[in-house]
């Protein structure tokens, strides 16, 4: 089939809606030994019913982080709302440290979510906000409440309003299907943005969160596409002979680091200027050089190379005449680096006691520690707050997603009813 015919086929298929499937279920597998007790009182609804239990969404978010333990509603001695008097002694009695109360008020075609956060010990009101919410966006408003509570108590931004992209694989050859899915960070609202019978790999969010770059093998060759999420419009930005892989956006969103191969099969890292499509070759070595990741300064790339025999992570400055410097030294296998938002840590796939696990590497000292305990953990992606990574692992022979706190304290698993889920990518913070 010609490219034109294929394009027409794609257009024809646009008539179909995204099937909502492969929804994920979250389970905390290891929490803090002493999570912070917090009571989220059911939000009063002045005119009901409303489609979302805001307090429940907030409680789920905070518990999913592993750092909080919600108070059972049945134990609450009272259910105060903002603006009314309540007795802090009732809450001290229940040994809860923090209290969230709120209400949802209809406001024309909109809703307004009002909430307050109290320190139960001191009685201090830590937060008091009113969030307007468009119809259908109440859940987003609830995630915003979670973000604000999390940040006020822990001092780091929450990541509850973010999204994840992942690849869902179902069926077996020759009927295997690959779907690129975008969902809320809690796994809800999954939306298929690409559906193919050929592999899809390596989704990468643009820094503004509006576009995804990914690798698709449609047409039985690899190519890198950039797809706008709002419109579904996409562009093929690299389709050279051989490998087109591992796209990574520069922090300014103007360039894409990627992996290409020569006709002789030499695999190297390049940087493409997205406006001009000009390519700059970054590495030049007979080894496999791949999996580029940008440092936040936009002037340094980390990448995987097996130039020393086995794969290890290297760093190179994007200036003329620079030579790569090796970054990882512990263990025989360190690959697929991702850089923390502050640039100080890398998360890598590392071979640990015969198993593929995630390691966090301190860039300054080169020291690393293993933060997961699976057998086939791969594809880590930092949350925009740098606190957590999401990654792919296997559970009873199936691909599932999991999260791990960078300090190793908390893990959770996101499982799907169908198929293998892999290659997660955590979105940037949404613009507010």
């Amino acid at each position, binding site marked *: *089939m010609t490219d034109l015919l*294929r394009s027409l*086929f*794609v257009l024809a*298929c*646009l008539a*179909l*809606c*995204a*099937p909502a*499937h*492969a*929804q*994920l*279920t979250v*389970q905390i*597998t290891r*929490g803090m030994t002493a999570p912070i007790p917090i009571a989220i009182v059911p939000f009063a609804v002045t005119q009901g019913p409303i489609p979302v239990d805001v307090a*429940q969404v907030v409680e*789920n978010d905070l*518990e999913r982080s592993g750092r909080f333990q919600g108070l059972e509603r049945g134990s609450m001695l009272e259910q105060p709302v903002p603006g009314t008097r309540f007795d802090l002694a009732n809450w001290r009695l229940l040994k809860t440290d923090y209290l969230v109360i709120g209400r949802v008020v209809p406001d024309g075609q909109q809703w307004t979510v009002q909430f307050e956060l109290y320190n139960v010990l001191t009685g201090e009101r830590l937060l008091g906000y009113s969030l307007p919410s468009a119809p259908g966006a109440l859940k987003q408003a609830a995630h915003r409440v979670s973000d604000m509570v999390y940040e006020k108590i822990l001092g780091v931004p929450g990541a509850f309003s973010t999204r994840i992209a992942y690849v869902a694989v179902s069926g*077996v*050859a*020759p*009927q295997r299907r690959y*779907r690129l899915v975008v969902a809320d960070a809690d796994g809800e609202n999954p939306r*298929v*943005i*690409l559906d193919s*019978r*050929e*592999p899809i*790999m390596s989704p990468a969010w643009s820094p503004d969160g509006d576009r995804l770059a990914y690798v698709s*093998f449609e*047409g*039985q060759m*690899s190519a890198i596409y950039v*797809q706008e999420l*709002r*419109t*579904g419009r*996409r562009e093929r930005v690299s389709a050279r*002979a*051989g*490998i087109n*892989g*591992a796209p990574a956006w520069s922090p300014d969103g103007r360039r894409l680091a990627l*992996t290409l191969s020569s006709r002789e*099969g030499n695999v190297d890292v390049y940087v493409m200027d997205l406006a001009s499509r000009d390519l700059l070759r970054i590495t030049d070595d007979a080894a*496999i050089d791949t*999996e580029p990741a940008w440092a936040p300064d936009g002037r340094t790339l980390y990448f*995987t190379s097996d130039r020393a025999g086995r794969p290890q992570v290297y760093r190179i400055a994007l200036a003329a005449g620079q030579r790569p410097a090796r970054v990882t030294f512990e263990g025989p*296998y360190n*690959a*697929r680096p991702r850089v923390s938002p502050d640039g100080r840590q890398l998360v890598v796939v590392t071979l640990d006691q015969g198993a*593929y696990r995630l390691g966090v590497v301190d860039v300054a000292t080169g020291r690393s520690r293993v933060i997961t305990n699976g057998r086939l953990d*791969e*594809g880590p992606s930092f949350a925009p707050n740098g606190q957590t990574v999401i990654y792919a692992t296997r559970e009873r*022979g199936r691909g599932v997603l999991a999260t791990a706190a960078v300090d190793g304290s908390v893990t959770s698993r996101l499982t*799907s009813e169908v198929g293998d889920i892999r290659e997660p990518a955590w979105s940037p913070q949404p613009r507010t």
Partner: protein
Amino acid sequence: MNRSFPRHVMLAVLAATGLALAGCAKKPTTVDAPAGETVGSTTGDAGATSGTTGSDVGEARPLPGTGADAAGATAATTTILFDFDSAEVRAEYNSAITAHARRIAASPAVRVRLEGNTDERGSPEYNIGLGERRAQAVKRALLLQGAPDAQITTVSYGEERPSVEGGSEEAWSQNRRVEIVYLGGGR
């Protein structure tokens, strides 16, 4: 600590287009490999398995490891297996490589695609590199036996297209492979 949230358990809605009612302002892009001239059963698209194209479509694939020492090209295996973390073509495939090289050299119209694959372990994009390295190793072996460079292309699928599902050593050993796929123009 092991806490779960039954209230948080969500429905897995099956991919029935009829159910896609709410929240579908945006539509997925659906892509399919082109139907057409592909020969062989590993491509996994409807076009290749439908057998509606040229006379040689749907050529049977010998099981891995069989026919490797057969003299005739049609009997030679089209799957070359590799050791763990290795891109070295094992000596047992010498006669198969020779047979394929002869077959390619004999018909200038023949086009061959070498599809490199790895097992599921390790990082997917690094495995794309490893699969390419394997495909290139088979290509070099074919060139050494006289196959013309212009008739051979390579593609690496890394760990994305296992031939055997599962996480056993046996599955892994079958998935570390290069598949020799004859495209249009074959005799």
